[in-house]
Each structure stands twice: as structure tokens, then as C-alpha cells.
């Protein structure tokens, strides 16, 4: 076979490069968003309505899927923690309630699963910690949880859209889609996400899940606080808010009459790592 001469080589190389560059442009023009992985993309791909039976068409046609009319709804859910009202007993009750409702196991060591937990001021607010500051605030243990950011970095990086932002602002996990890549854990600046390094069922006392109405997780998925979407759907407030005795407020950030907005009007509040621009929606009333 004859070798390719310089002129032909340059011609083919140029043509290939032109096609290669044009390909992405053509894709973007003809099928906008199709090439993006997590951001944008085709919305509503999951809208798989209950299918017709191929063998018995028309027989007992599939029904409709509708929201629960009793569901608590909001434009933008948010939370405020009143640090003046928290006692050691309240903090313990809140953490216990969350862990029980959501079958969060207690795993010894650094592989523990955390939905809501206690931490020090420096760890919760590294940007606000001063060398000399109010001792009372500094020594207070803070309860931290997923901030359900307006601009959630975890959602941007998820390659499977397993984590996503609902219309009401809740950053939700779809456990069925999580592949355990842990990009979201690297992206979250608050450490709000935990990975299941082992089967969590092994870590329940007597091998029994505390709550039979809520699923556990499986080995290899990431989990976090969901603002109790399953309770909101039934018309109930999140479990932590319910047992907090008024120390935790939950409401619609878009409604100026909601308990959270009312508290924020009169009290000085801080948010975690505000400067990162993720716009957390969990406020701490000092």
C-alpha cells in the first residue's frame, strides 16, 4: 500500500478536525442540552406514567398519580434553629427522633451516617470564629444538617441526577439512582452527606430497623437529611421540628408570615459558610 503524502495527510487531518468541532456545535443546535450530563438536560425524563398492559390493552386501564391533598406545600422550605432555646436534652431528643424515623444506624468510627448532629462553633462556622468572642456562643454545641441550598453544589456534580432540587427547594435524594460515586460528598461544603461503606442493617441493635414504615439504605449509596419529605407529604412537620419544643422553626421562606420569616425579622441570624454562595436555607438565631 502506498503511504499518504504530506498534502493528503494535512487535508484529511483538517477535515476531521472541522467535523469534530462542528459535531458538538451541531448537537447543541439540533438537540440542545442533550450532551450535558447533570446540569440542564432533558427535564421530565422520569415521567414514566403507568404503562398499558401489552397483553391486555384497555383492560383495567392504569390509574392516575396525584399528590396527597393533605400535603404541606411551600414555595421555598426553610428552617431556623433558635440557639437560645436549645438545651442538651432538646438536642439529644432531636437527633434521636431523626435517627429513629429514618432508620439511621449508629456505626462506630469514622464511617458513621449523619443526618443531623452536634458540632462545635468553629466547625459549623469556620468563617465566623474569632480569636476572642462571646464565650456563650462559642461554647454552644450547634446542631447541623443539610442546608438545602438554593444553589446546591451536590446537585451540579451528580452524574446520574440521583440528587436533585425539588420545586419547593428541598434537595432530595433518589436512592434508586445513586451509584455511590461520592462526587456530591466532595462537592458539599458542609459535610452533610454520608456514604454507606457497609450494609447499614448490620448496625441496628438486634438487627431490627427501628421504623418499619421507612426504608433503610443499602451498601454503596449516599444519604442525607431530606427535610422529612415523607412527613410533609402526610401533612406533618419534620420529625426534628416536632420534638424540638419550639427551638426549631420550619416554614415557607417565600411567605413573610411564616414562623421562620417572622423570627428572622427580629433576631440576628447566621448561616453556615455564607461566602461560598450556596445560599443555605437553614438559619441559626443567635
Amino acid at each position: 500500500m502506498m503511504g499518504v503524502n504530506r498534502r493528503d495527510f494535512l487535508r484529511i487531518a483538517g477535515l476531521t478536525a472541522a467535523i469534530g468541532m462542528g459535531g458538538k456545535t451541531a448537537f447543541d443546535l439540533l438537540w440542545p442540552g442533550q450532551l450535558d450530563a447533570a446540569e440542564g438536560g432533558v427535564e421530565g425524563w422520569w415521567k414514566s406514567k403507568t404503562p398499558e398492559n401489552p397483553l391486555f390493552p384497555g383492560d383495567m386501564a392504569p390509574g392516575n398519580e396525584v399528590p396527597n391533598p393533605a400535603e404541606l406545600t411551600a414555595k421555598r422550605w426553610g428552617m431556623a434553629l433558635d440557639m437560645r432555646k436549645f438545651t442538651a436534652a432538646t438536642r439529644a431528643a432531636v437527633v434521636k427522633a431523626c435517627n429513629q424515623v429514618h432508620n439511621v444506624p449508629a456505626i462506630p468510627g469514622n464511617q458513621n451516617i449523619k443526618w443531623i448532629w452536634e458540632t462545635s462553633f468553629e466547625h459549623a462556622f469556620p468563617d465566623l470564629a474569632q480569636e476572642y468572642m462571646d464565650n456563650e456562643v462559642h461554647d454552644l454545641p450547634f446542631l447541623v444538617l443539610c442546608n438545602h441550598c438554593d444553589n446546591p453544589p451536590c446537585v451540579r456534580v451528580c452524574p446520574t441526577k440521583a440528587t436533585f432540587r425539588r420545586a419547593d427547594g428541598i434537595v432530595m435524594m433518589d436512592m434508586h439512582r445513586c451509584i455511590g460515586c461520592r462526587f456530591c460528598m466532595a462537592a458539599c461544603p458542609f459535610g452533610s452527606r454520608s456514604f454507606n461503606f457497609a450494609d447499614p442493617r448490620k448496625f441496628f441493635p438486634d438487627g431490627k430497623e427501628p421504623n418499619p414504615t421507612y426504608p433503610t439504605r443499602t451498601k454503596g449509596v449516599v444519604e442525607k437529611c431530606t427535610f422529612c419529605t415523607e412527613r410533609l407529604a402526610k401533612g406533618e412537620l419534620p420529625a426534628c421540628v416536632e420534638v424540638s419544643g419550639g427551638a426549631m422553626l420550619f416554614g415557607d421562606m417565600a411567605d413573610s408570615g411564616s414562623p421562620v420569616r417572622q423570627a428572622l425579622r427580629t433576631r440576628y441570624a447566621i448561616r453556615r459558610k455564607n461566602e461560598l454562595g450556596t445560599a443555605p436555607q437553614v438559619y441559626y438565631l443567635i
Partner: protein
Amino acid sequence: MNDKPVIIFGILVFLAIFTFPFWHAKGNAGPVPEVQLPKDQKQCVASKEYMRTTHMQLLDGWRDSVVREGNRIYVASDGKRYNMSLQNECMKCHTDKAKFCDQCHNYLGVSPYCWDCHVAPKESK
């Protein structure tokens, strides 16, 4: 080529071993699985035929609808309303996973991973 008889013998042995499951069972596919249906309920969310062939797609649609769109209620074609939840609704009637789900799944050799996360009701023994 003097190996012809050896090759043919080899092929016959291979065929005999390969088809062993078929002629050993003499075309009998084994006992058909017996599914225990709930005694106090007559009607599922769809007809028996529909559920038999399409329950996996129905459940797959349910899980997306619940998690992604927040739809929690299923209005069946007869107007009855159901909570779309495997753990809290399906298993309320089909209380025994071993005598219902596992019967066909084991027979067909499929192992859906529902129960890695969802909690099955306690099995009565």
C-alpha cells in the same frame, strides 16, 4: 483424517451433557409456583392480568412519581385511592413476601433488589 469417530463421539458426549436438563426433566418445567393471595381483599390496584405481567413497570413508575414529582396517591381506574408505597401499601395486603413475591421470583430466577432497602413485613412461620 482418522480422527472422525473420535470427533463425532466427542460431539455426541457434549450434546448429551448440554441437553441433560431438558431430557432429564422430560419436558416437565417443575412445579408451578403457588402464590398466596390475600384472603380479605378481592381487588388489587389493577386487574390480576395487568399486575401479573406489568407490576414491575407499575412499581418503577410509582417510585419515580413519588420521589421525583411528589405524587403519593394512586387513583386506580375504579376510582379507589392508594398510597403509592411498596413497603406501606403493597405489603399491607401481601403480608408475606416469601409466599407472594419470592414464589415467582425464585421460580424465574430473578432477584429484584427492592428488599435491600425496603423493609419487608415480618414473616410468619
